[in-house]
């Protein structure tokens, strides 16, 4: 394994060739906020929270897909980046209906955590209060579009890990919505294996177990990594 040495926030970091800046930073203990990224799923670089400054590059680069290279000089927490992250979180809060006090994920929500981290104590932009539906047609799970941030983790986990491809993104722009099957009620989609991986990886309370009350949903994305390690080990075994 060849090693690349780079500099992240003034610290020298050694990283395996082929790793991303995000992976290198995490190994080095530098926290870069993410939302759409999840270890074990293909990266999409859509939430833009992990944008970093790279010396010599005029454009900000998403750490989740930017490969490390020798001598790279990365800044992850400049005032400009802090302002961008706060604005991204504000844009997410104002485009949906995120009411923590009545949310199943309250206290265990990645969006909430990121808001605290970036210091978003209020929104400077107006809330849009969109009219969004809730799908409770599945016997075990529910989908509340009001809380969805369109990170597409559910789409990817269902396609890439479960292999069922129940979920997709439909429409475009502000009208984007996660759909089951061909925009059917979730409960009527035969392809769904009821495995619950989408619920497991959802960073907010958008996908939840029926019966969960306020603050009772504990998402557990680390189980995904464990599952993939186990599968990998089994494939490698003779």
């Amino acid at each position: 394994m060849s090693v690349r040495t780079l500099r992240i926030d003034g610290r020298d970091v050694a990283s395996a060739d082929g790793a991303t800046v995000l992976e290198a930073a995490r190994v080095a203990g530098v926290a870069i906020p993410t939302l759409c990224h999840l270890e074990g799923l293909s990266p999409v670089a859509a939430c833009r929270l992990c944008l970093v400054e790279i010396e010599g590059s005029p454009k900000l680069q998403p750490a989740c897909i930017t490969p490390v290279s020798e001598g790279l000089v990365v800044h992850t927490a400049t005032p400009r980046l802090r302002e961008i992250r706060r604005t991204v979180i504000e844009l997410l809060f104002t485009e949906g209906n995120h009411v923590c006090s009545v949310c199943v994920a309250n206290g265990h929500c990645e969006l909430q955590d990121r808001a605290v981290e970036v210091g978003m104590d209020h929104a400077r932009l107006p809330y849009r209060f969109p009219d969004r539906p809730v799908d409770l047609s599945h016997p075990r799970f529910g989908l509340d579009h009001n809380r969805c941030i369109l990170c597409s983790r559910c789409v990817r986990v269902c396609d890439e890990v479960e292999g069922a491809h129940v979920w997709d993104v439909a429409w475009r722009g502000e009208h984007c919505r996660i759909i089951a099957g061909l925009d059917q009620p979730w409960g009527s989609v035969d392809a769904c294996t009821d495995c619950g991986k989408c619920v497991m990886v959802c960073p907010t309370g958008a996908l939840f177990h029926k019966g969960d009350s306020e603050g009772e949903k504990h998402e557990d994305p680390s189980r995904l990594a464990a599952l993939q390690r186990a599968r990998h080990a089994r494939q490698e075994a003779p």
Partner: protein
Amino acid sequence: MTGLRCCASAGCLARGSGALMGVLETAISRGELGDQIQLRPVGCLGPCSQGPLLALDPDGDLYAGVDPQDAETLVAALARRLHQSSDQATPLEWAPARGERLDLRAPFFQRQRRIVLEHCGLIDPTDLEQAIAVGAYGQLERVLQSWSPEQVVTELQRSGLRGRGGAGYPTGLKWATVARMPGARKVVVCNADEGDPGAFMDRAVLEGDPHRVLEGMAIAAYAVGADHGFIYIRAEYELAIERLRLAIEQAVDRGRLGAALFGTGFGFTLELRVGAGAYVCGEETALIASIEGKRGTPRPRPPYPAELGVGGRPTLINNVETFANVAPILREGADWFAAIGTAGSSGTKVFSLTGHVRRGGLVEVPMGTSLATVVLEMGEGSPHGSAVKAVQTGGPSGGCVPADRLDTRLDYESLQSLGTIMGSGGMVVLDQNTDMVALAAYFMAFCREESCGKCVPCRAGTVQLHGLLEKILAGQASQADLDQLETLGAMVMDTSLCGLGQSAPKPMLSTLRYFRGDYLARLGAP
């Protein structure tokens, strides 16, 4: 032989040139003049705002505003002239009842240099033989028989041709990059997803001279080592789609496309892909996803399509006008092409001149021509004694050039320094009564509607920016709102995933730069 060329492009067809051709044909056959007057449909003749347009050969006259009612008198006048003398140089004693014979000495015609459009308006786009008669596929044959792919790439590089889709990336360099990529099965894609409001250059080329684009693609395929190509065209361009389908069919039948072309081992097949109404699919990675049958959303670059394109294969993507430049460059030589235009931007550029302008239409001028020449001389300025306030170039990704900067030359760098872009060639003239805030709000609404929704800044940011602009328009905004507009605009530009979001705030920031007064006058709240 007397020839009548009638514009059969979308603009003139909409103004009734289809009916005109019908009655002309009837009148000609009734007068038994079929062997003396040849009527043919052709591509765009130029001043679209004055259509239906009709050209007369061998006189070379161009008539504007020709109605179907004029057909009888025209054919009668032609018959008289044919009867009276064998000398066709006698000027025709005729004018359309409500139209006019255009003065071809006007700057609109004199200032043009038609390379891309050289055969547009001359040949019947549905007739391959006419295209071949003026040289179509001649360069492909010559290149296949006597040039190496490397020679073609070098020639393109030396010509200095830059991408006509808007970004101005050096075409030869792009070809060289794809050519260097490993893999035997590469792909050539023509981006015909022209979607900027007010832009119709590519449509005119495809409707008027489709074989030129096919030839350019085949030459590109030979140069980079591709065997298959796609033309990605927006579904709204029904006529262009119809003519492309026919052109591909004809080219295959005549051995201009397909396997073993011109007796060589080189083969190239071509497929048409019709979009489904998403502007973002003009972005190359979204376009590739759409060709692959996936949701048309962009992905981060790198990897660039040259490395990872359609079906994971190295892919060359160029715009319609870029491909249309290839055959003339090879025919006349790179030096000839490089001598046209400016040092950094060689060749010509086709613009669709629209908006508050007396004479609108399709013009092709050398790079480096000033905006004043195009808008004030060729377009003859704004109508009804009104004055030009600004010229919008580059559509939703571009910006405005104010009237006092119309001396700006049309090349990639000059426009960039003014905060706008060359873009694909849409040029919308705005007169003194234009509300620049409303204009900015219009373009922001466009981007809001066309955002794919994948990345947060573009999906949610364009909505907030549009809301702020609407608030200013309603007279309810404060200075703080204006500040927020600029801050958020800069953030959306800096952080969006693809070109759509990265340039969505440009029309707004550009009008703020030159017409801040329009905004300040709208601020109502304290």
